[in-house]
């Protein structure tokens, strides 16, 4: 037996690839960080992500960093099932001995995963919420999808969740579109944890918010990660967010993982030229 073992993964991404368009014969070799482009010059296909692999355990947050266009969100969307991957596998462990390969599931089964296994918090609340629906109604939707039917129970759970994410309860019956950016994000968080999913993906969760509002949302996310022992993936180009929430990171550039490291090591001793450029830009 090995003397030190990392906790078992809950989410495992294996050689994930996503190509938009038709790849030419040497399309993979002709794209990537060494070539400096994601575009296959022969066919015009975009290799948004290629050969991306990582594991995340319960109670652990993995950061995905890289500049815009590096493929961070594509990876996220493939895991969430918003996009169909071109190659590779995404596995989730549901019980100790049971794993699911999510690409082998039907569309209906994948939707069910989104109800109680994987939640996503998007940068733009409009992606994660129905803007014309009330805060309570938005939270009710994953609950009813999970089989909740009793009105007062749903309402009770919704107010409990809004309370947890610090949304004033007297706003519960207002349409989300009337909310401020920070409060919309809090409703998104309440919706994401409604069925206590083991895995939550955060795609730039505080980008675009005022500094003080972002700080509040970040503190809330940190609290939720600790309280629920979530396996989390945090996509962000903001190193202060990454430093605060994650213990390990991967760095993406032109669709590839160029470095994976402990978060403090990435910030103090980045190895790949691109990581060095990224870190020095952020720390200047």
């Amino acid at each position: 037996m090995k003397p030190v073992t990392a906790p078992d993964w809950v989410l495992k991404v294996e050689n994930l690839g996503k190509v938009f368009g038709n790849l030419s014969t040497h399309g993979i070799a002709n794209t990537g960080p060494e070539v400096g482009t994601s575009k296959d010059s022969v066919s015009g296909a975009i290799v948004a992500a290629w050969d991306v692999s990582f594991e995340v355990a319960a109670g652990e947050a993995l950061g995905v960093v890289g500049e815009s266009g590096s493929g961070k969100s594509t990876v996220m969307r493939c895991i969430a099932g918003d996009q169909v991957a071109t190659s590779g596998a995404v596995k989730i462990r549901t019980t100790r001995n049971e794993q699911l390969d999510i690409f082998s599931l039907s569309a209906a089964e994948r939707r069910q995963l989104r109800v109680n296994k994987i939640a996503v918090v998007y940068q733009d609340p409009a992606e994660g919420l129905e803007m014309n629906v009330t805060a309570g109604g938005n939270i009710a939707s994953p609950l009813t999808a999970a089989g909740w039917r009793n009105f007062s129970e749903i309402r009770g759970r919704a107010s409990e969740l809004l309370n947890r994410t610090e949304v004033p309860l007297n706003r519960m019956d207002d349409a989300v579109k009337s909310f401020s950016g920070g409060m919309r994000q809090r409703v998104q968080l309440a919706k994401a944890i409604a069925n206590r999913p083991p895995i939550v993906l955060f795609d730039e969760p505080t980008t675009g918010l005022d500094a003080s509002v972002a700080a509040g949302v970040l503190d809330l996310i940190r609290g939720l990660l600790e309280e629920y022992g979530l396996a989390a993936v945090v996509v962000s180009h903001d190193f202060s967010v990454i430093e605060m929430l994650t213990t390990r990171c991967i760095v993406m550039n032109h669709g590839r993982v160029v470095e994976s490291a402990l978060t403090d090591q990435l910030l103090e001793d980045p190895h790949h030229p691109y990581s060095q450029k990224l870190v020095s830009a952020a720390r200047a």
Partner: protein
Amino acid sequence: MTQQIIEQKNVVLEVRDLYKHFFLHTIDSRCVKALNGVSLSVAAGEHVALAGTSGAGKSSLLKSIYRTYKPTNGSVLLRLDPETNVDLVSLTDAELATLRGTKIGYVSQFLRAQPRRSPFDIVMQAGIQRGMDRQTAKDAAAHSLQRLNLDEVLWDVSASMLSGGEKQRVNLAAGTISPPQVLLLDEPVSALDPANRESALELIGTLTSQGVAVLAVFHDIEAMRRLASRIIVLRNGQVDFQGSPTEALSNLEGVAR
């Protein structure tokens, strides 16, 4: 790969031929050599102080052991129990993360606490991480902060509001509450006034009697003379000299003057 074994019985940390070279790709791929083959060992209950001029590699060594820097070559063996040791250099990131804070601790010169967290919470969480139950951790945190004379009105404010010296004491309190078996200290008292420095040094002094293996960097010779059981002098990223405090310090003063 062959399993490397710590030979000496009471040694808990053994560094073997450790190299750390930085390749600065953004500056004409320059190579900065911080460590050039450092070997040393620290036993349980021993306090080893690292000395040497600025740039000699003292902090780089601590960071390379903790793997905030990823060593270029060599090994860092940590004894987990009498029968088992691991090479920190060859562990995966996720494996290493399980040992940090619990088996090996690092107290830096600066508090790297998460924003908007209170000193009391930081210290208490450190205790919980090392297996204390909540109540024990609470009591120990209070005791530890008191011992380092941190004013009680500051216990529940955001740690980022504190002064440099106050932050340093919080950092030290968090690092030494139910201390891990190996503790790396990087100038832990550099920002403290004489009175607070005194209580901090006293606290560090008690670590060895608890069986902790301490590897420390201090900028003042007085602290080394008082706490160290052995001093290792680094020069150009290599061990230049090691011996008792008296021997090493006379050697060092010869270099410094």
